[in-house]
């Protein structure tokens, strides 16, 4: 317990979390501080490229072990099942109708890559190694949840999914970049890393700080605008669902035999909620669902929860389980 608290405190006072807090505070105070759209997108391209590349290099170094394939499968299953759980929980806790509940549920099966990156950086600070292929698992978990969410409503109804939407989801920029960089890292290995490490490694945390500043600004604006739309039931869901997801992630990780680091990352992935890929798919497939609800929950409630409290909690729990 003391350990959890100290971890949480440490995490709370890291530049990364403080930058996020600064962003939230600035936007709640209605400051005009803002990161230009193009700059924010450039930062995210950098982060995806760096994290994918480093994952690939690490796989090249440690070799592809048996669990890689199984982890991918586990990721797909988690992503597909979590929305069903989330849907049931939402219907119990909040007054959301089926349509909006399904849309929200889809977000919680999928993942937030920035939460994943933040977890990686906490692991790094604590000197805990993790499987490089977890970035591939992250990519695998993006899309299945969308299908589950659509299935939740369209049972009976005619399909809302057309081929072009399906292609858009599977080939969305983030997945392609993450997976592509992963393969580039795998192919070029340590030699490639040496060439570009002063780009992808050294400044990484600093870039993450600025990115989280922007995330804080966006989350704060979302809360200011969409906060009043959320009932207490929904908000409760936004902080209860992550630990539940993490618990399922923990079970899967133990069954797969992942390392401590890998376990924390799978827990974090399961606990996190999408705010880029899934919203885009929902706007096309479920235009009647209210984006303010799912975006505010995922970005304004669950993202901060995971960043500030969730990640240290998952690390502490996993450490406890592994220590025992």
């Amino acid at each position, binding site marked *: 317990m003391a350990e959890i608290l100290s971890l949480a405190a440490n995490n709370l006072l890291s530049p990364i979390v403080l930058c996020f807090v600064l962003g939230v505070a600035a936007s709640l105070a209605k400051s005009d501080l803002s990161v230009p759209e193009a700059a924010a997108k450039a930062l995210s391209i950098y982060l995806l490229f760096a994290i994918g590349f480093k994952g690939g290099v690490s796989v090249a170094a440690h070799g592809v072990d048996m669990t890689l394939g199984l982890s991918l499968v586990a990721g797909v299953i988690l992503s597909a099942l979590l929305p069903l759980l989330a849907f049931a929980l939402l219907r119990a806790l909040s007054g959301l109708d089926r349509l909006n509940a399904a849309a929200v549920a889809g977000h919680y099966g999928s993942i937030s890559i920035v939460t994943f990156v933040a977890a990686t950086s906490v692991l790094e600070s604590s000197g805990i190694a993790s499987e490089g292929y977890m970035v591939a698992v992250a990519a695998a978990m993006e899309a299945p949840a969308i299908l589950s969410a659509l299935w939740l409503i369209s049972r009976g109804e005619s399909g809302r999914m057309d081929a072009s939407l399906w292609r858009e989801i599977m080939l969305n920029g983030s997945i392609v970049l993450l997976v592509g960089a992963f393969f580039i890292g795998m192919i070029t290995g340590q030699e490639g890393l040496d060439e570009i490490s002063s780009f992808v490694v050294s400044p990484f945390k600093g870039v993450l700080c600025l990115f989280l500043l922007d995330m804080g600004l*966006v989350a704060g604006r979302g809360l200011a605008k969409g906060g009043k739309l959320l009932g207490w039931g929904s908000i409760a869901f936004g902080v209860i669902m992550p630990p539940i997801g993490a618990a399922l992630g923990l079970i899967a990780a133990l069954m797969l035999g992942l390392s401590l680091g890998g376990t924390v990352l799978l827990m974090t992935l399961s606990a996190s909620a999408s*705010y880029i890929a899934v*919203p885009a798919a929902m*706007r096309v497939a479920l235009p009647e669902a209210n984006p303010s609800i799912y*975006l505010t929950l995922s970005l304004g409630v669950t993202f901060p929860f995971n960043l500030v409290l969730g990640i240290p909690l998952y690390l502490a729990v996993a450490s406890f389980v592994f220590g025992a």
Partner: protein
Amino acid sequence: MQTHKAKRVEITIEKIMQSRLSDALVKADVHGFTILPVYGGSGRSGLWDRTGQVGRAEGMVQFICIVREERLDALLTAAFKVVEKHIGVVNITDCEVLRAERF
């Protein structure tokens, strides 16, 4: 200068629907349009602007299509199918064009 009557159709629609509307227009044989970026706006779903966006799901664009009057209905029908369930606005103005052979 010699000008010719035409219609100017302005469609404000979610960015995520941009490629779908493009495709629908081209399918309806409307090959000429210009797409403007939108910086922000307000409607029944409230006030928004670009700085508050995280992903591809948000933001709008504005299509401007100049068409001959006789093509207007085909255009509107095609556009309406895409816009129907989505937020967005369609308005039509009378205009004159130079180089009518292009339309």
